[in-house]
């Protein structure tokens, strides 16, 4: 499956003097344009040295800055975005706060003008703090009512060293205690152009875009990068008691990061384990045994650490068997490796997804920002394709051989009863 012939791609990049990086991709055949602005201002920075604000500050600030900015009050700002037909979302994650938007290509620069106000000139009015707090507290409560999402946040918190698994929704105590001044302090310390990346894709005019971004974001002042101290995560085995219909089962195992030379081998191993419907987990857990409705493995990476996450949700009486089968499949992958046909399937799936992403300005804009964050460049499609072609059953199997040690596995369950976990010493 050659990917380079089918997709003509033009990728441009520019770094402004304040450190902000603009990455753009002109996509023929689309009318829309989308952008993703990644600001290194996620929940991890809540515990930066010398800062130490309550959990949930990043999320509260991401909501706060949209409530009036530049010459517009809160209502005028949202109305202006609506009038431009901008679909947008602002959210804090663990590492970044992400502002993303999509609209018709002709409305891109006017939309960026509004977002430049949000980033550079938010009003951050004190009277908005209580409504923002109330909203964030309610979101936290709704998260408690959503066991499938809750268990993944809690898994990351246990698997990654603090603060790299810090849940962005925060805590009730954290959100309840944050004052307007503390939020302002967080905002001033961490919202910065150095380390920020703006990915833009779709119907764009690059020279005009480059000038506009320079004009709009040029006055954004760089700040020193806050320092984050690492502490151990854990525990490696845990259960959260909850009176739910199903038990949520979540596992994490360390894998190679996007930056690592082993990246493609890791991606392949995770996909073959649980990335699609003919993958091993779906086949063994759902198709053959009918143990659950939802089961998968996925890959996620930060710069310095990455994980394979596995998830299943099932009834109490079948949860132990489900966990046992998942662990057996992880170990079988480690001991016996993969088949040539599995590698072909994995390749076809990944390449198709890459090409189909060219039909969506939104998914390309986030891929551009993400690639730049990891690599300081954007990987051309043909490079990814070549790397995937270079994989062999042997190279992927050798990589997966690292999956046999139970000590590396973090296991978390959530539900009415705890399960038996494999000992950490087991190989």
């Amino acid at each position, binding site marked *: 499956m050659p990917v380079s012939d089918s*997709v003509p791609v033009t990728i441009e990049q520019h770094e402004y003097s304040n450190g902000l990086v603009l990455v753009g991709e002109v996509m023929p*055949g689309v*009318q*829309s344009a989308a952008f993703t602005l990644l600001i290194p201002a996620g929940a991890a920075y809540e515990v930066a040295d010398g800062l130490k604000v309550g959990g949930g500050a990043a999320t509260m600030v991401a909501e706060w800055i949209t*409530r009036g900015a530049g010459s517009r009050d*809160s*209502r005028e700002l*949202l*109305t202006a975005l*609506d*009038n*431009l*037909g901008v*679909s947008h979302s602002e959210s804090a994650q663990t590492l970044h706060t992400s502002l993303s938007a*999509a*609209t*018709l290509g002709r*409305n891109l620069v006017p939309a960026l003008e509004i977002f430049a106000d949000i980033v550079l000139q938010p009003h951050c009015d004190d009277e908005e703090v209580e*409504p923002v*707090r*109330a*909203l964030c507290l*309610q*979101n936290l*409560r*709704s998260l408690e*009512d959503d*066991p499938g999402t809750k268990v993944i946040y809690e898994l990351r918190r246990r698997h990654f060293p603090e603060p790299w698994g810090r849940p962005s929704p925060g805590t009730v105590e954290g959100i309840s205690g944050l004052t307007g001044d503390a939020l302002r302090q967080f905002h001033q310390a961490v919202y910065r152009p150095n380390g920020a990346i703006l990915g833009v894709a779709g119907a764009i005019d690059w020279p005009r875009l480059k000038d506009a971004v320079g004009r709009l974001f040029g006055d954004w002042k760089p700040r020193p990068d806050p320092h984050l101290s690492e502490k151990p995560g854990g525990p490696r085995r845990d259960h959260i008691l*909850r*009176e*739910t*219909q*199903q038990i949520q089962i979540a596992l994490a195992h360390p894998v190679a990061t996007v930056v690592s030379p082993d990246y493609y081998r890791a991606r392949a191993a995770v996909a073959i384990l649980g990335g*699609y*419907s*003919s993958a091993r987990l*779906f086949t063994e857990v759902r*198709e053959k045994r*009918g*143990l659950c*409705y*939802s089961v998968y493995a996925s890959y996620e990476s930060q710069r310095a650490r990455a994980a394979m996450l596995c998830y299943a*949700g*099932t*009834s109490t009486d*079948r949860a132990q068997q489900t966990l046992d089968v998942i662990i057996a499949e992880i170990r079988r992958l480690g001991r016996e490796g993969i088949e040539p*046909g599995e590698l072909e*399937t994995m390749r*076809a*799936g*990944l*390449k*198709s*997804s890459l*090409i*189909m992403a*060219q*039909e*969506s*300005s939104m998914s390309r804009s986030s891929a551009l920002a993400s690639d730049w964050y990891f690599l300081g460049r954007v990987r051309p499609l043909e490079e990814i394709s070549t790397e995937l072609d270079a994989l062999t059953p042997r190279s992927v199997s050798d990589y997966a051989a690292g999956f046999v040690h139970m000590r590396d596995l973090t296991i978390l369950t959530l539900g009415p009863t705890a399960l038996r976990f494999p000992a950490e010493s087991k190989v």
Partner: protein
Amino acid sequence: MTFHHTTLENGLEVIAELNNRAYSVAAGFFVKTGSRDEMADLAGVSHFLEHMTFKGTPRRDALTVNRDFDRVGAKHNAQTSEEDTFYHVTCLPEYLTPSFDVLADILRPTLREDDFETEKKVIIEEIRMYLDNPMSVAYEAAKTAHFGPHPLGNSILGSVDSITALRVERMRDYFAQRYSPANIVLGFAGKGEWSQLVELAVQHCAGWQGGPATRQADPVRGTGTFRAIRREEDLQQTVVGVSDAPPLETEDRYAAHLLATILGDHTGSRLYWALIDPGLADGAELSYQDYNQAGTFFTFLSCEPGETQANLGRIAEIYRTVMAGGVTEDELDQAKNKVLARSVLRSERPMGRLASLGFQWMYRRAYLTLEAELEAFSRVTLDDLRRLLRDWPLWPMTIVSVGPTTDVHRPK
């Protein structure tokens, strides 16, 4: 962009909107059958049958079905609603032939008994998964409360009891009645050659047999009942409100969609400013759902239990105000801008076009280009909205509340 249409001799309709600039092609079978077509003792059979199609055919077992899609990188899925079962695949154009070979194959499943018993367990897990989701529980209960004995109130998934009791023979009968070619539309969107698509359709589907299937689609008016269900384990209170709205057969659906956007879009709407912005709720939306000979406005609310009663009062106030005074020109323009941009964005992917194409054809025998659809939205006037609000009042509505408190009642 070109549109094509033909009908095979067995009654299967084939449509395609082709676009040479697309990178992918999407194909889908739209089967006109869903939970509203089920008798009480068959509750959940449409959705269960959707699962069973993936479990194997005379040529493939379940593992082969999954593998044959995945080996060419085809993204496949299916969904069942109150009135349709929709099977779809998206792939690169050069892999359409093998992808379509699987998709068409599974529309003639074996329905083996041992697969049926294994999959029954999966369905029961799916039901339990949704039981852990307060919004799903409230939504299902609200539809049942609103439609009363009308089959639109049937649960899509069925219940643990109805699924446990279901026998494979009944599913086979249901399949024979509902999956006849004349009850199915085959749609394509994206990059492709019409002659090749027709050839594929003939090769794989011309041998399908079955007589005409009918649906009893009686118009229905909601009951307007009120119900409070206690779920002690929840932290938030979840409320779903339902009122009647124009059916999909009328042109009023454009106005209904715009009205729902103005009042209850997730951002910038009247509900947003009244409930979300001040932090009184973490979810407050209004959406329009059209059905065959029926329609509904759904109101969704998620908030702290103690604030539920007051929030219901605020929602009632918003609906009464708009029923008395209508909306403003600015609000209407803003909603049109939102709908336009979102439609363009969604339509850039062939899969984003396919569903709209297929359902338009199934229920209206109409092909609407994206431009024509946008034009229909832009023609809506303030008078249309006034008339809509008179014919389809938003208040009073059926209300179901789910959560830790049952101290909730219909606002005055």
